[in-house]
Structure formats: C-alpha cells, structure tokens
C-alpha cells in the first residue's frame, strides 16, 4: 500500500499517444457519418466547435499550477450529451462529436500558443482524452440494448431522469479528465501519482461540479430552444469563470506580497541574495516529491519564503545570514520572532506553526514522539543545504556530507532522501557544469 502511494510514473508520453489515437480513430470512423449530416447539423457542430475553441483560449489558473479551460470543457460536454437535429430515426455517433471536440481544442490551443502564451500540449492532450469519454459512454456503449442517447428519447415524459443520467455521465467524464491531467502534471513535477490524482479531484471538485451541470444544461435546453441553448446556458458558467478568476488574481497578489515580505531580510542585508527563493524552490520540489497536497504545498511555500523573517528584529546581522552557523538558542529565537510576526496577521497560523518548529531537531520526533510538521522538517533540510552549499551550489557534495552526518539526529532521513532525488534530477536537467 505504501509502495503504491509512493509510485511515480511519467504518463506524459502515453497520454499524448492516447490523444493522438483518439483523434485518428474518430476521424477514421467519422468518415462514414459525414454523408448523413444535414445543413442544420453542420451549423450546430460549427457553433459548438467555435465555443470550444473560444473557451480553450479563456484559461483559468486554479491554485498556482492547475490550468483549466472551463467554457471549453462545458461546451464539449454539452455537445457530447445533446441529441443534435437529425432526420427521424438517425442519430450522430460518437466519432463526429469527438472530431469536433478535438478540432476545437486543438485550434484554441494553437491560437493561444501563437499569441505567445506558455501553454503545454500535455494538458490539452489530457483534456482531449477525457472529453472523449462522454460521447463514447452516451452515444456508443449500449445499456440494455440501447445507447443512452436512445433512452433519452424514450424518457421524454420524465426528463429529470435524463438530467440525472447526464450529470452522472458528466461526473465520470470529469473524473477521467482530472485524473489524466493530474497524471500529466505529476509526471512533469516528479510527484507520486495517486496522491496527485486525489489532490487534483479534491481541489477542483467545485469547479468540476459547475462544469458538469453546465454541460447537462446545454444538452437539456437544446431540446427546447435549439442552438440558442449554447450561449444562453454558458452564461451562469461565465459568471463562475469571472468569480474564480478574481480569486486566482488575488492569490497571485498574495504570493507577491509574501515574496516582498520574504525579501525584507535580504534588503536589510541580513541574508544573501535570493537565499529565500532558493530555499523555497528546493522545499517545494522536496514537498512534491513526497506527495504533499496543494494546500500543504502552499503553506510550505509561504513558510519557506518567510523562514528567515525573524532576523529583521536582530540588531546586527549574522555572518552571511547563514542560520545553520548560529547557536541553537539564537536559531530558535529567530524562528520564534519570525513566527510572531507571521502570527500577527491572524490569517497565517499554519505557516507560523511551521516557522516555529523549523529549527527543532528530528530526534525530538524519534525520542519524545513530538509532532513535528513535515513542512518544518523540509525547511530545516533545505535551509541547511542552501547555507552549506553556497549560492551557486558549488559545495554541493560537502553540504550533503554534512547533512548526512546529522541524519536521524538533526534531519529527517525521509526528507534527505527526497532532497537527494531532487538534486539528482537537477543535475540531469543541467548536464555539464563548467569545471
């Protein structure tokens, strides 16, 4: 079980291959359907295509790294679930629908990239595969001899049942899409797979609910008002989009302000240039490697940025700001002063707790069973590494040697192992360093 939780798999390539094969297969099967399409159907498909492409350009960043395109996902879901105008007795199969979705997402992403936005193909690939689940489930898989699309017509008297079925299909689709997106991201960040998926689902459940219901709304209303359903019923989602975007903006601002707070010690000449930023980068990489969730990662990030804040109250700077060299009592006082300043905000209590415990040696956990936050252990190791290895990491080997001497006594072995993995990956990313 533990091994399963630590499982790290890079699924970026498989997901990309899946996306490519989904596109190719659906294009192949769609050829047969194209002849049956009437002008009205073309118009509908074209408008859905437009909505998906436009929606793809309206990206939303939820919680630092999660990029989503809500309008695009909802429009794709709406298309997958709606009957579309067809001559009686015929219906559109999944292939044409999937081709439309793929084309929309591809065009939208291309436009974004041409505009110079830094969007990865990986996320789009994951979304394409995820979006293909709904048409297959709704228009292809038979349930007691009929597809759900066929059942929809039989249940005309009880359309609320249709609504519930649509919501269920949408939920399955979102779950698949979110898992794939999380897998792609976990591959990129070298984070364990399962915690990443669980965290993704937890963090975006709210937004996913809005997407699923909007998709069902479009499909249900299409019955009554035709294609006008698309713009009309995207409207509540657009409100949601703006609300979430405001939230995302203020989060960015918040991170910038914490950054300013963190650079105080540097401006005052207490710590070396970029020390806090480097410790933060290392800490977050280690936290990801250990499979921490986004909420905990944010707390870890803030705490790492602010870990030296207590030094502003010092009358004279510590040589080079390296707290690892300071006497334990001084280290603790600095940690305490910093925690006090952070606690005075009244909103960062968790960060203050992490700061307070950042100097506590690991043996307190082993010998006295003290409850030491994982974030504090990570910051302790990352800070020691940065102080000992120097700004350019020139003394990396010596720093790791010193840290290994304190293994189990000062430092948590699990964290040190993670740091070793992070450093290995960094070395691989920058192959030759000038010697």
């Amino acid at each position, binding site marked *: 079980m533990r091994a399963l939780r630590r499982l790290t798999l890079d699924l970026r390539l498989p997901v990309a291959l899946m996306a490519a094969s989904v596109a190719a297969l659906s294009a192949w099967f769609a050829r047969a359907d194209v002849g049956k399409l009437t002008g009205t159907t073309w118009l509908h498909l074209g408008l859905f295509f437009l909505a998906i492409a436009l929606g793809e350009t309206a990206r939303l960043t939820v919680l630092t790294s999660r990029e989503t395109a809500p309008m695009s996902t909802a429009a794709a879901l709406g298309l997958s679930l709606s009957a579309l105008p067809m001559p009686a007795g015929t219906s559109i199969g999944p292939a044409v629908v999937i081709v439309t979705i793929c084309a929309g997402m591809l065009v939208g992403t291309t436009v974004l990239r041409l505009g110079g936005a830094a969007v990865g193909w990986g996320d789009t690939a994951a979304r394409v595969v995820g979006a293909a689940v709904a048409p297959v489930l709704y228009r292809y898989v038979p349930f007691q001899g009929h597809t759900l699309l066929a059942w929809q017509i039989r249940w*005309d008297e009880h359309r609320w049942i249709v609504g519930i079925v649509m919501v269920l299909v949408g939920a399955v689709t979102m779950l698949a899409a979110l898992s794939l997106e999380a897998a792609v991201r976990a591959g990129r960040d070298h984070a364990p797979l399962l915690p990443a998926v669980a965290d993704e689902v937890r963090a975006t459940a709210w937004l996913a609910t809005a997407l699923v219901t909007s998709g069902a709304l479009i499909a249900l209303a299409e019955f009554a008002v035709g294609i006008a359903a698309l713009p009309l019923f995207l409207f509540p989602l657009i409100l949601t989009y703006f609300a979430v975007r405001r939230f995302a903006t203020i989060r960015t601002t918040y991170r910038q302000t914490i950054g*300013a707070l963190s650079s*105080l010690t540097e401006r005052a000449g207490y710590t070396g240039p970029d020390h806090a930023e480097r410790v933060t980068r290392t800490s977050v990489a280690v936290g990801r490697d250990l499979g921490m969730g986004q909420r905990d990662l944010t707390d870890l990030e803030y705490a790492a940025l602010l870990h030296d804040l207590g030094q502003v109250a010092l009358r004279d700077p510590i040589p080079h700001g390296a707290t690892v060299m300071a006497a334990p009592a001084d280290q603790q006082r600095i940690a305490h002063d910093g925690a006090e300043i952070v606690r005075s905000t009244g909103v960062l209590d968790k960060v203050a707790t992490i700061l307070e415990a950042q100097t506590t040696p690991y043996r307190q956990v082993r010998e006295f069973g003290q409850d030491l936050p994982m974030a504090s252990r990570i910051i302790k190791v990352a800070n020691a590494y940065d102080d000992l290895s120097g700004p350019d990491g020139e003394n990396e080997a010596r720093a790791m040697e010193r840290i290994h001497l304190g293994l189990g006594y000062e430092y948590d072995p699990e964290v040190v192992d993670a740091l070793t993995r992070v450093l290995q990956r960094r070395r691989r990313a920058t192959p030759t360093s000038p010697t």
Partner: protein
Amino acid sequence: VNAQARRREGGSVRYTSIATILTVLAVDATGFALVGGSWLWAGPPRDWFALGVLCVLGVTSWMLRETDVGARVQLSFTSIIMLAAAVIVGPVGAGIVGAVSTVIHLGNEKITVRLFNVGMFTCIATLGALVYTWTGGVAHAQGVTGAADLLVRVGVPLLFADLAQCLTNAVALALILRVAGGVPMRMQTWKLLSTTGPAYVGYSVIGFLFVVLWIPAHVGWFSAVLVLAPLFVARWAFGQYGDELRAHDRTLRALVTAVETKDPHNAGHSERVAQLSEWLAEALGLGHKEIQEIRTAGMLHDIGKVGVPTRLLRPRRELTDEELVVIADHALGGVDLVRGIDFLAGSVDGIAHHHERFDGLGYPSALSGADIPLVARIVAVADVFDALTTARSYRPACHAEEAMEQVRQRGGTQFDPQIVEALNRVLVRHEWAPTDRSAELLASAGVALDHDEPEVSDLFAHRPDLRGGLRLTLPHPVQPVGGRP
C-alpha cells in the same frame, strides 16, 4: 436585497420607534393586500408541488445569502427564485414564495426586521409577477415553443418583472431607512439602484434560463439543481476571494509591523499616516479605488527603512551628512521592495515621492508643483503632520492646532496648499490626538532629529550637495553601511 442585511448589521438602523413599527406593519399589510388581490384576480397558484419546491429553494437561498465580500459584490439567489415563481406558479404563488423564504430563518433575528423582510419580499415577488402578466408574459409559458417565441413572450416580460422587483426593493429599503434613520429617501433610492442594478440584470437572465429549463425543456424541479449549481460555485469563489483579500490586507500590515520592529519608537506611525491619508483623499473627493491606493501608500511609505541600518534609526549622536543620505534613500528603497506586487502599482508613486517638496527642493527626484503625483503630495502632508503630533526625545508632541499652524506656514513651499486646505477640513471633521510615548521608548529613540521633521526637509532643501548624493534611479538592493560588529 442584501443591502438590507448589511445595514442591519452595521447597527445604523434602530428599529425602535413607533414610526418604524408602523411602517413595517404598513409594508406587511401591502404585501398581504397584493397577494389577496391577486388571488381574487388570477385565482390560486396553479401547481402546488412546484410551489413547494420553489419555497424550499427560496428558504435555502435566503439562509445562504450572507456574501458581503467587502468589494461590494453580493449574490442573492432569492430574486432568481422569485422571478421563476412568477412564471411557474403565478402572482399568488410568487407572493407565497417571497413570504415563506423570509419567514423561516435559523438564528435570532429581531422580530421587526423579520416582519419587514416578509412584507417587503411578499411585495417584491407579487408585484414582479403582476408586472410579468401585464407586460404580456404567458402564464406557465404554456404553448410557447422555439427560442424567439420564448424570448418575446417570456424573456422580455421577465425583464420588466425584474426591473419592478429591483425598484420595489430599493424604494422599500429607502423608506424604512428614511423612517428609522433619517436618511434622505431619494438619495438612498438612487444609491441602492446603482449598486444593485447590474446584479438584477444578471438575475433576470438566470431566472429566464430557469423557466426555460423547467417548462419548455420538461426538466421540472431538477432544473433547480442544474441552474443553481454553477451559481453556488460562483458564490463560493466570491467568498474565497473575500477571505483571501482580507488575508492579503493583514499580510501587508505584517510587512509594516516587521519593518517597525527596527525602530519600536515609531510603531503605529504608518497606520496613522494611512488613516490621515485616507481622510485627506476623501476630503479631496477622490474615488473609491484611489482612496484605497492612497491609504496603502500611506501605510507603506516608510517601508524602505528596512534597508537602513538599525543604529542610524536609533542614533546616539547627531547624524553625519553621509548618514542622512543613507536614511533619505529609504524612499526609493521602499519602491524596490514593493515593485513586484501588481496590486500596489497605484501606490508606488506615493512611496517614491513622499519627500518631494512643492517648491522642487525635495528628494529623490526634485519634482515640483503638479509634477509630484497627487498620492505623494497627500502622503507628504499626512507624514509630517503625524511626525509633529508625536512626542520626541528632544520635544513634546505638538497639539493638532499647533501642528496645523506649522503645516499651513509651509503651504506653497514644502506642501501643496490645496492639500493643506484639505487637512484643515479633515481636522474639523475628525478628532486627532497627539501620540505620547513612554520615557523608555523615547530614550531608545536616540537624540538626532527624526527624518520626518520639517527642519530636516529644509536642511535638504538648502543643501543641493546632499540631494546630489542620492541615487536617482532604482538600481539594486540597498547595501547597509557598516553594521557588522
């Protein structure tokens, strides 16, 4: 709709007088008369099951309505439910939905407040539904099919119903505020209309969607779940936004606290300058956003002091020229510090130029007159006024009148006369107490003149060589002079 809840919490309204009670009863009577009249005119509600569902929705939305986010963003779903009720269950049904939504409420609420809400919402809902019928709305959207037909025979009448609701809401609230608090009614009505108007337009669109899904699309009660889910997510995101905004505000404050730990004798100065700057901006009739930016600039104006060695902030002797220049560098040092924060873009000028002088002899850029950004001219006055009314080791705190006199004498030389005038108006309107400090704190503050003293500004004005010693651009982090043992 929520404006009412806000006001109640603000305590500005006292529902005590007999006039208030009479008004509340009158509003209630009007509501019940409207429902009764509609019953006689249009008959009982058509669909009792739908009415039950709508009532449950109404009660839920009313309970979840507290979403005051500070940035004047409010979402109220009760209006949407009442609009949908106008079509689905007719005027009497809508009135019942309005009354039931507000009468059931967990937690304690004053009986007069609840009675008023019940009356007001009954009026709003019934009037809205009547307007829907009078403007050609088809009851229960019967026989209406197709997008265009729906828009003309349901959508447009719903928009009128929505306007009627918005107007009734504003008038009823203004009425009760007039009776209970003496707030001029016409002004209040306009204010409410302008703040709630845009939201009401959104409500009408969503109410329309609700109806379309319920009747022509045959989805029935389940449409409530589908239509309201994205809105609840929006509401949740707005709530999160509000929390984060407050958290950010408090973190900015922590930034100031952290810097003030370097010179404890100046603790509270930033907060006071922020307050005074805000009052000045208000007195000058600036907009909401500008006032906030100016307040923030006042709060952060001395943040660059973090780059000044502590021993210069608590000096044991007179400062040398070189040391004065190091301290004067805090203006640009502060800019360096906050430049990366997008949110503070409007406040940066105030931090950079709060030691400029109106006659052009200030620092760091020697700007004069209107070339100095307004925010900096405001913070400059607030900064010196607070410095004067604060006790120092070398003099007691000035009274507000004395300090005002000193500031007035410097209008046209150090300060913008227009803002000096504004300060005068502010002091008439607000109380300003001088800041006294313990002997211990004063002793730790050292003996040299504080950098905010007018004399120090004059010294810089008379010594071009000192100003020349300052960096004029923003190159790199401030390096402390000495400071190591």
